């Protein structure tokens, strides 16, 4: 699988909230081979501190030329990244990891929380192209309308209907995405694609297990290399062993992983 280390130019910066930023990066190499669920490792500064690259999901690609990342400022690396300006260059490694596997015969449902929505936009776009007869259902949740609305609009633009949920009730359901998911009329052969905070993914996993739905999760861990070299990015799997989120994942069949019982 092709991987690149590239200086990529920032061609657009959008700010959805004071701490939520979307960057559009120019990289035909990465954009033309990336698959939904894959991620990139980005240097957030040029110095030795912060030292390590930060992982971000590829949130959309366009024209095989550009790709986007959507991120929230949670620490020093993301803060530095949020201060970037258009025209500047970033060192990007990618595309990395495995992507989602899709089956057009199933009823597909995307469930995203917070920044976990990022890779689902790419997945939604790909599904509507490769399975045109079978639009996926989309359930996304975030803190407020302010940060969720631009993403809902993006899904709408590709012709997908969205069931939103917000913590403050400012858009859609007032509460959790899992509440919305549980009320949907899902077929028995449904497959759920979920990315978001760990407790949300665990809840969706148990829900799918109960109903017999297939479920793919995209896992977040701390990562030093993103390419299978440091062995730092583990997630526990069933027999006491570990899988590596960067190279075995980040997308896993939720049944392979070890989840804390509710």
């Amino acid at each position, binding site marked *: 699988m092709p991987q690149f280390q590239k200086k990529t130019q920032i061609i657009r910066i959008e700010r959805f909230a004071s701490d939520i930023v979307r960057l559009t990066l120019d990289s035909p190499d990465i954009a033309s081979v990336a698959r939904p669920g894959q991620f990139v490792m980005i240097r957030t500064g040029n110095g030795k501190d912060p*030292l390590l690259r930060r992982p971000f999901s590829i949130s959309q690609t366009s024209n095989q030329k550009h790709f986007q990342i959507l991120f929230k400022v949670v620490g020093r690396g993301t803060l530095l990244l949020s201060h970037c300006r258009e025209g500047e260059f970033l060192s990007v490694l990618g595309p990395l990891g495995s992507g989602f596997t899709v089956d057009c015969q199933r009823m597909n449902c995307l469930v995203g929380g917070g920044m976990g929505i990022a890779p689902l936009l790419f997945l939604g776009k790909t599904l509507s192209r490769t399975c045109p007869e079978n639009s996926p259902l989309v359930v996304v949740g975030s803190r407020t309308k302010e940060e969720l609305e631009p993403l809902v609009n993006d899904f709408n633009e590709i012709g997908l209907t969205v069931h939103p949920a917000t913590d403050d009730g400012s858009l859609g359901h007032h509460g959790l995405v899992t509440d919305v998911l549980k009320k949907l009329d899902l077929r028995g052969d449904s497959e759920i694609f979920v990315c978001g905070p760990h407790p949300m993914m665990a809840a969706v996993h148990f829900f799918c297990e109960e109903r017999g739905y297939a479920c793919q999760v995209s896992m977040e861990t*701390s990562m*030093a290399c993103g*390419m299978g070299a440091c*062995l*730092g990015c583990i997630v526990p799997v069933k027999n006491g062993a570990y899988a590596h989120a960067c190279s075995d994942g980040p997308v896993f069949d939720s049944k392979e992983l070890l989840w804390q019982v509710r």
Partner: protein
Amino acid sequence: MASEVNGVDLRVSIGSLKLKNPVMTASGTFGYAREFEPYVNLHRLGAVVVKGISLEPRFGNPPPRIVETSCGMLNAIGLENVGVERFISEKMETLRQVNVPVFVNILGDTLDEYREIASRLAGVEGIAGIEVNISCPNVKKGGVAFGTDPEMAAVVTKAVKENSTVPIMVKLSPNVTDITVIARAVEDAGADAVSLINTLIGLAIDHRSRKPALANVIGGLSGPAIKPVALRMVYQVAQAVSLPVIGVGGIETTEDVLEFMLAGATAVQIGTANFVNPRASEEAVEGLAHYVATERLGSIREMIGGLVLP
């Protein structure tokens, strides 16, 4: 053996082993080399050192295993590896095809384990050398690391040497009062080279959760933060022993490599920098070639121990 970089002489020797240049990659930071193929022309490196291998497979420590610290990182991977048998049948198979000298980093909980793993690797095609990680706790001696006691370090060195068919390089732990004592002990025990330093033990705490950042509580510090400590130890050890010294710790650029060579290193290993810039090792080879050419040196070997003291 001709050097490939513009006819410039970058060759160095580690015992009987001739390397085309002094740039190696450090154990645990370069996977089994294949991971870096999209970024690096592996055959241009001096050598690669693979992830530490034990007799039996190990799952390693629970997460979180890594955390970034100022100009560095702490890791407590817990020596996760596939075990020597799978290493030979799966990993060596592909390593043989990359056309670069391979050092196998080995570790054990007991002296017998070191001995057994060395004999299992003896004669396996494609192994250029063994690097002995002696920073592991000796289970039979109450968990004291082999590398912190000169006698235990010597006994392990001797056991591996007696059971190996290739040069052995002993990787020293910096977590000791006087590293030259350990270096001399392994030299006397028959080591062909010493590499240093392994990680410095450290701790990171998240004050909000009041918990350690790593599940293992304590981890090993690596990266630019440890470079001055590594340079100092390389300098001291290079004066204390007559073996080739391989410098490790915070090396990222050509300039870093030159500094380690001036301090007395014959070769170097690039570790954590591979995570930040996967091309760091190959770029250092290119940088050294450029340096030798522009400074009109006869060979890179002129740099070794060339520190000008005040």
